[in-house]
């Protein structure tokens, strides 16, 4: 089966439906699938539920989909970088389900691994725990969190091959492997599609079984907080 597509638009062809759920990799603006997000914006698909650690900034990343009001609900751990998000949320135009960062990561991991739920101490005694099953193990209280699968996952990797094998670079890995596994269909965008057999087979982070479509894209890689030290 051919996995390589020529661009983001063609890779999304036939997959987008109003009201669908999408998992998107990235932490802040680091390791986000820029090309696929832009193509989803251009498609006009609406009422999306997007699971992603953050919501981009006003004019970049997932912020693009907020600008056009294509997102109905975000499942995120931190959205403090996005003023538009705050405005839409406080105006009641956007739903947010806050998940603790580790809980979100584990929900995606579990979902992709066929685990429908897991117990964690994270959030016990907070509003996150409200309405969730509590259970004691060895004298300590845990809450039940659900595994999360999504209709589609969009991820960004450094290098990939025609089989969909992916490697990530430095901290741009973040949520991408979990999202790749959690999507019923996963599209990866990479900086370079390399010839089959040239990736180090012992250092592949996401094996190609998790990736149905792959594109090569140009990446702006915008930096949110440019901090330097003096020489």
């Amino acid at each position, binding site marked *: 089966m051919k996995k390589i597509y020529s661009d983001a638009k063609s890779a999304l062809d036939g997959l987008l439906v109003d009201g669908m759920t999408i998992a998107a990799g990235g*932490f*802040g*603006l*680091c*390791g986000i699938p820029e090309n696929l997000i832009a193509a989803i914006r251009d498609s006009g698909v609406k009422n999306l539920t997007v699971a992603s*650690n953050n919501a981009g900034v006003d004019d970049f990343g997932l912020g693009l989909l907020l600008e056009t009001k294509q997102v109905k609900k975000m499942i*995120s*751990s*931190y*959205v*403090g*970088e996005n003023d538009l998000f*705050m405005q839409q*949320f*406080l105006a009641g135009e956007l739903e*947010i389900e*806050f998940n*603790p*960062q*580790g*809980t*979100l*990561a*584990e929900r*995606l*991991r579990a979902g992709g691994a066929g685990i429908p739920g897991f117990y*964690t*101490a*994270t*959030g*016990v*005694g*907070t*509003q*996150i725990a409200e309405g969730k099953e509590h259970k004691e193990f060895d004298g300590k209280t845990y809450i039940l969190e659900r595994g999360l699968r999504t209709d589609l996952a969009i991820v960004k990797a*450094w290098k990939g091959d025609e089989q969909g094998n992916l490697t*990530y*670079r*430095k*901290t*741009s*890995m*973040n*949520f*991408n*492997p*979990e999202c790749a596994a959690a999507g019923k269909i996963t599209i990866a965008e990479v900086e370079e599609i390399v010839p089959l057999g040239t990736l180090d087979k012992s250092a592949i*982070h996401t094996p190609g079984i998790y990736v149905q479509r792959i594109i090569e894209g140009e990446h702006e*890689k*915008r*930096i*949110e*907080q*440019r*901090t*330097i*030290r003096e*020489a």
Partner: protein
Amino acid sequence: MPWDRNQLAERAAQELEDGFYVNLGIGIPTLVSNYIPEGYDITLQSENGMLGMGPFPLENEIDADLINAGKQTITELRRTSYFSSSNSFAMIRGGHINLSILGAMEVSQDGDLANWMIPGKLVKGMGGAMDLVAGVQRIVVIMEHTNKKGEPKLLKKCTLPLTGTGVVDRIITNLGVFDPTHNGLKVVELAPEVDLNEVKDKTEATILIE
């Protein structure tokens, strides 16, 4: 003299022990890395997927693929490893991290922490804070003793939505060092020239005196 931001960070650095794996929160906690005691082997974890966080980069070292949990550009070290978010939180939730130093909006005398939300006003999210306080072996909070209006932030009970209950082991403020207990805050240390009456005036929580 109450401690300033840097002195707070310097005092917090005394909480480090040789060989510790440490997660530092955003803001003043980040400054703690400037005061790691000479000769200590400390590995900093960044919850976006990195162990062995280095200093900020030189201008020519900036790498968009290399940031910390505050989204700041940073550098790697020889010891550095990278991993995914679920792996990162497995080491946090699994109790493998020795110490986390975090900021706070409010702390209660029995160690409840609120640092992620002001209903109707500030809706940013908890990020990794709930996982950190639930999983890391020891939680130290550094914060200003009062808010911008001069109102106490060390309370009998938190008023803001909680990040965790009974999770704070030690509080370091500009006025001193305090340990939550079931009966109130135990005074561990006061900043130079700060007296106990000032602390009592600026604290709603019960202050215990040895």
